[in-house]
């Protein structure tokens, strides 16, 4: 009866099943064959990611070292010329300053408000209703949000009417037309849109915290504030780290809201690095210069991500 033999594993198969990693010629041969099978599965992803994403990144870095000649194309090597121009360009200084403000604001406000809301809403009556209300702006496209708030900030819009109600007289501040109001106004819109995600992520983090240490602390007579400060917050650190990094990256690359809401603002306050890059490349045609701005953004973003990886590892070790 030859069929019976089919059901009995050979030694080699048994070893493979239990994860024996041999290094004999047969296993090496198997590994090699396995690699090609796996490569066949990975090849569409590798092909697309490298040709559409990674090669362009390399090309961008190359472009940033070239000089663009009108009607002639580029390819003239310029060394660090574009980067030198960056350091002396007053708009770049503006863009860098504005972006720093955006990074600070987009970390600070959503984090504080999101943490506060998460703690407030958690376990409350109608929790899911409140969560939905705060979260829904997040589903909308930044473009749609920008369009909506563009009119909310209109001189005879909702914000001015509300302030008028408090002040008792007519208020007609051009929120999106003045240097000193345009950034705070758009940051409020940004917070309105993003705090929902921050809140949901923090709630997920809070729900993952084991209940035992908190109950034990309560038993020992710790106040709610003490429990929050000494137990909940440290255990929430990994989540807060993720949220902070997401916010930093969002702040550095902010574009859509500034582009849509700053459309009729004449000054430089809405010039973030991303908007600056778009202007230089696609409106002024300074391709090489625009590439250099993108590289600067890339260096900053990679540094942030790198820092996160290191911090993450450290926090994980601390918690354990």
């Amino acid at each position, binding site marked *: 009866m030859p069929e019976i033999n089919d059901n009995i*594993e050979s030694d080699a*198969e048994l070893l*493979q*099943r239990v994860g024996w990693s041999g290094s004999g010629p047969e296993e090496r041969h198997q590994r090699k064959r*396995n690699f090609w099978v*796996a490569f*066949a*599965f*990975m090849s569409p*992803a590798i092909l*697309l*990611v*490298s040709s*559409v*994403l*990674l090669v*362009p*990144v390399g090309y*961008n870095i190359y*472009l940033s070292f070239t000089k663009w000649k009108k009607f002639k194309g580029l390819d003239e090597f310029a060394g660090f010329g574009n980067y030198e121009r960056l350091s002396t360009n007053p708009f770049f200084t503006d863009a860098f300053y504005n972006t720093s403000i955006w990074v600070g604001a987009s970390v600070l406000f959503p984090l504080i408000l999101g943490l506060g809301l998460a703690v407030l809403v958690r376990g*409350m009556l109608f929790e899911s209703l409140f969560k939905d*209300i*705060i979260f*829904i*702006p997040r*589903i*909308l*496209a*930044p*473009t*749609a949000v920008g*369009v*909506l708030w563009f*009119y*909310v900030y*209109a001189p005879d819009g*909702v914000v001015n*009417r509300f302030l008028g109600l408090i002040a008792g007289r007519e208020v007609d501040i051009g929120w999106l037309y003045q240097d000193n109001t345009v950034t705070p106004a758009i940051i409020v819109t940004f917070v*309105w849109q993003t705090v929902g*995600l921050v809140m949901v992520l923090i709630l*997920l983090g809070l729900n993952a915290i084991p209940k035992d240490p908190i109950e034990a602390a*309560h*038993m020992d007579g710790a106040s*709610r504030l003490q429990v929050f400060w000494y137990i909940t917050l440290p255990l929430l650190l990994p989540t807060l780290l*993720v949220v902070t990094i997401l916010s930093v*990256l969002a702040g550095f*690359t902010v*574009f*859509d809201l500034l*582009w849509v809401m700053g459309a009729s603002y004449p000054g430089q306050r809405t010039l973030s*690095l991303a908007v600056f890059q*778009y202007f230089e*490349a*696609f409106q002024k045609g300074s391709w090489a210069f*625009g590439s250099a701005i*993108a*590289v600067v*953004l*890339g260096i900053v973003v*990679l540094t942030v991500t790198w820092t996160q990886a290191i911090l993450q590892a450290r926090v994980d070790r601390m918690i354990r």
Partner: protein
Amino acid sequence: MSNIEYHLDLEAIARREKKAHRGNWLAMAGTILISAIWIVPFYYLATSIFKTTEEYSLNHPLSLPSSVTPVMENAVTAWSNAKMGTGMMNSALYGFTGAALAVFIAALAAFGLSRIDFRGKNYWFMLIFAGTIFPLQMYLIPLFFLYQKFGILNTQFGMILFYTAICIPFPVLVLRNYMNGMSRDMDEAARMDGASEFTVFHKIVLPNCWGPMTATFLLQFTWIWNDLLFSTVLANRTEVRSIMNALQVFQGSYSSVGPNVVLTAAVIASVPSILLYFILRKHFMEGMRVSGA
């Protein structure tokens, strides 16, 4: 354990509970206040789209509309002036094709990375994952040039190509982790019976991955639907323009129509992503969880 004495001050606990209870009412009031502030822009949006341009400009922005019928006219004006039909069709095409292709290709790669044993897995994973670590700005200029060179600037094919590629790395991360956690018994049994690796993939592994695949599909679809930057740069002709691009252009030319019409356009452009969210909320939250964790 048993020799630890617990001193339970029952009265103190009761006092604290009472205090916590009172705190709940304060917390409730605070939450209601914040929720109310959060709703105001939505209320403004919901009432404005029911007003005629004349009614909008004469009344308080938060006043109730006198009738609901003007919304039809607003929608028709927005639809034709902003060429929203084309935009919606394009975005639907980009969103569905791009996200579906990306998730399928990512599932293939994740299978190779998690269910087949070979050396150097991490390097291949990192190569694919490198597609998400750069800021989007680094792709804009080179892609514009390369697309121009290969004649796919301002084409639907070019847009689908980019959206598919950019949406691959994240699902690879999620699906690889998920597949790593799945039991291997069935794979091995099927392999023993002479099944090819592709059969193992689509008969055994794929049917067990619908949950995370749906979650990542939704996140990627919404990303593509909401994207403004790449449509502006790579597809700025009316016929291939995405819906968000059409909306932004329409708002820029708002002098020709009233804010009520532009706001109606914003609502129409947002309907698909809002509907998807409410229908598949569970999967969305799952997606949030995997992307946050």
